[in-house]
């Protein structure tokens, strides 16, 4: 071991701030937050302690130097305080590439996670966010399990509260709806400390599974009657729809309907459409205030009769009163003669706006293009007719040319008459030269 003693520079007289303080003390000057600072919320923005010795450790260079007492044991009576340890070729190479390897392994600032690709039907409202995705069944509560339930998170937002100790305190709040698709559903708001989105959603799931309500569904697919419901500035107009119509409503309401098991509905939301809690509350209130046909028959003392368009409006009794006396034509009041669709909805109707024409509908170029297409307006129906009648096997140029060729042959051989007459040009035979 060769001594490196002559190479050491000693500057014993230099005493400054950095030499007088230890490392942790120095870091504290940067990272500490005072009590008053904590009150003002500076704790959240404090500087972290940077691991400066991560890439440079004392003595770790291509030439491995051992400093006695620093990175090597100190021995008494040892003259050489600094020695160079002997290394093999491989060890030198490893120590050279070590830093590089660490840097390669570390991700470069951006968060690059290999997420599983979700099926388009399973994706949420936006990007890879959890909001709007199917989250599965909530955990069992007191031995009641929710195996056939499906949960949707409708909204995750950051709410804040002002306290006199900590100032503005932020909380994550998640609106969660869960349901079994057969009328049972529940919704709740779950909360968690800031940045704990998943915790908030899980809390919400737990709460929602404790607040289950039951909605009566007409034919197991739609609502019993058109209703109007409101909460805060959100107004909801829901309408019963025929089988196979589907869910035509606000995206959040689609998820709620899926959870409850409504299959056909049209809902118009007026007022605030972004206050999802109010929206959920209004819609669910409307659903719960519904009246089944049996209840209606009971209340009115009349038969409830369905007239289906698929049966050419043949009247069919759906419900008749059980405990109430059936009214006769003489005892009928004016209110009983009201159209059933006007019964509910509190006399309110959604605003119907005609669809606005696109900006280009009256531009000159567009009108010109429409006029140019005008001669070909019947071409598609002709195509469908010819294919349906098996005249042309396929609507390709080759198939059509073959068909024309075949017809030409039939006419020249006299199998099919030549279309001649008014409006058709005469066939002039070619002169033989």
């Amino acid at each position, binding site marked *: 071991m060769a001594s490196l003693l002559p190479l050491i520079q000693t500057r014993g007289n230099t005493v400054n701030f950095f030499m007088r303080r230890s490392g942790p003390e120095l870091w504290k000057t940067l990272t500490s937050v005072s009590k008053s600072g904590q009150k003002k919320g500076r704790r959240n923005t404090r500087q972290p302690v940077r691991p400066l010795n991560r890439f440079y450790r004392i003595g770790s260079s291509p030439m491995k130097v051992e400093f006695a007492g620093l990175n090597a044991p100190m021995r008494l009576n040892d003259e050489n305080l600094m020695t160079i340890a002997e290394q093999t070729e491989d060890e030198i190479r490893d120590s050279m590439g070590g830093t590089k390897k660490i840097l390669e392994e570390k991700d470069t600032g951006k968060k690059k996670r290999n997420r599983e690709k979700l099926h388009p039907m399973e994706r949420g409202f936006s990007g890879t966010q959890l909001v709007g995705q199917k989250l599965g069944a909530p955990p069992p509560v007191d031995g009641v399990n929710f195996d056939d339930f499906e949960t949707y998170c409708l909204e995750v937002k950051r709410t804040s509260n002002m306290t006199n100790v900590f100032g503005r305190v932020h909380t994550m709040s998640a609106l969660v709806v869960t349901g079994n698709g057969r009328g049972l559903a529940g919704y709740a708001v779950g909360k968690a400390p800031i940045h704990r989105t998943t915790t908030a959603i899980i809390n919400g799931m737990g709460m929602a599974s404790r607040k289950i309500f039951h909605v009566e569904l007409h034919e197991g697919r739609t609502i019993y009657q058109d209703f109007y419901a409101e909460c805060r500035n959100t107004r909801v107009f829901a309408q019963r729809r025929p089988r196979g119509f589907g869910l035509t409503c606000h995206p959040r309401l689609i998820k709620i309907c899926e959870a409850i098991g409504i299959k056909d509905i049209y809902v118009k939301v007026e007022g605030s459409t972004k206050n999802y809690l109010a929206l959920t509350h209004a819609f669910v209130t409307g659903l719960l205030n519904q009246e089944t046909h049996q209840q209606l028959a009971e209340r009115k003392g009349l038969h*409830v009769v369905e007239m289906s368009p698929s049966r050419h409006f043949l009247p069919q009794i759906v419900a008749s009163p059980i405990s109430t006396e059936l009214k006769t034509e003489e005892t009928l009041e004016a209110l009983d003669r009201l159209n059933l669709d006007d019964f509910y909805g509190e006399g309110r109707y959604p605003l119907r706006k005609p669809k606005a024409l696109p900006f280009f509908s009256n531009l000159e170029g567009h009108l010109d293009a429409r006029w140019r297409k005008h001669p070909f307006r019947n071409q598609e129906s002709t195509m469908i007719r010819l294919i349906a009648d098996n005249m042309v096997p396929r609507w390709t140029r080759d198939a059509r040319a073959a068909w024309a060729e075949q017809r030409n042959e039939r006419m020249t051989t006299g199998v099919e008459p030549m279309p001649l007459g008014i409006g058709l040009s005469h066939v002039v035979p070619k002169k033989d030269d």
Partner: protein
Amino acid sequence: MFKFKPKISALARISSEIRFSSQWIKASSSSNEDINVEKLFVDQEVQKLLTDLTEIDLEHKVFRPRRTSIQQRSHFALMTEERLEKTRERMREEARRFLQFVPVKEPREESVQILAQDSELKDFDTSKFVFTDITFDATDQDRTVVVREPDGTLRTANPEEHDRMNRTYYQKPNRPVNAPALFADPYLQNALDKNEHEFVLDWACWFYEPDDPSYIRLSQLVFDRINESGKFHVITSTRHFGPFTFFLALNDNIPKLLNYFGGLGRLADCANLVRLQKAVRPDWRVTIAQGDSDEKIVKDFIKQNARFRDHIGDLQAFISTGKVKSEHEAEKHFGLRERLGRVDKRRVRITSGNIRGNEGPLGELSDEYSVKVVKSEGTGGSDGAEKKEEGRGRGRWRSRDQNTDDKKKE
């Protein structure tokens, strides 16, 4: 134009009256004398018998659930018993309109009338000239269409040319140039195997005129196949049942249909069918007296037509034992009746009659427990209904109200 229009129609009328054999009577059937089928079909007595035979089944046939072109939700209404009965009567009236028979017509005349022979116009062109009357009041049936042949002959158009001109000037969406492939085998047989007889015949009505030879051929084909396969239920309660029965009676081919009615225990219909046969074929050997009962008519028919004995087993069984075909079969397969007897719980409407029974919401548990009916909050007074007090959230409030009432009384 004004001069020869009446002339043409007069000529056409004469030609339709002089007709020797009908397209609706098959060559194989016994009679060979001339019958005016069109006139016979619209005869009042025949129409009455046919209407009686066409039973109106609103629920399962006339107004059965069909697919509609526009999506529309069902309407709901509150009705009293009288109102409901009135609406049902209106629907029955509507059904009678729906079941108006497709007219039985002879095919159109193929022959043409030569109106003029102008030999000086010979070779005026290489093509025929067709002149069509497209005035406002001309209908597709009586429109004047005449053709000038290249040899100078002026004649009325034949039915095919007439149709083509109609199509040229007054196109109809339901009448494209080529007939649908469904009207010919094997597609026709496929449809009939799926019991789509009514669909085929309805489409044929939609596509053809009733006096079109193709329509007559197609409808007779379908009628024959129904009679062969014995699937009479597919055509009952439709507008084609009248022509079908008429066609069978005209061709002396009723035993299978008689057997069908007998199997259902409809003796009056059997008798009506025999009466129809007699009305269509007055020379028929079976005699029907004025005051004969239904049963006597049918028994006389069976007695006098021993050759049909193989075909009318169900009818004979009904007359001798008084049991209809389904009962016989239920006896054979014992389990079937049980299966049919089981009622679908969701379909049954709950009324005050069955709420306490097995068909009510409690099902088989109702044997064990007694069912009590409780009114909900909004319905008001409690006349006649039993009230269940326990287990209700509002009970406390109600009792408090009662207490205050009591205090006031004091």
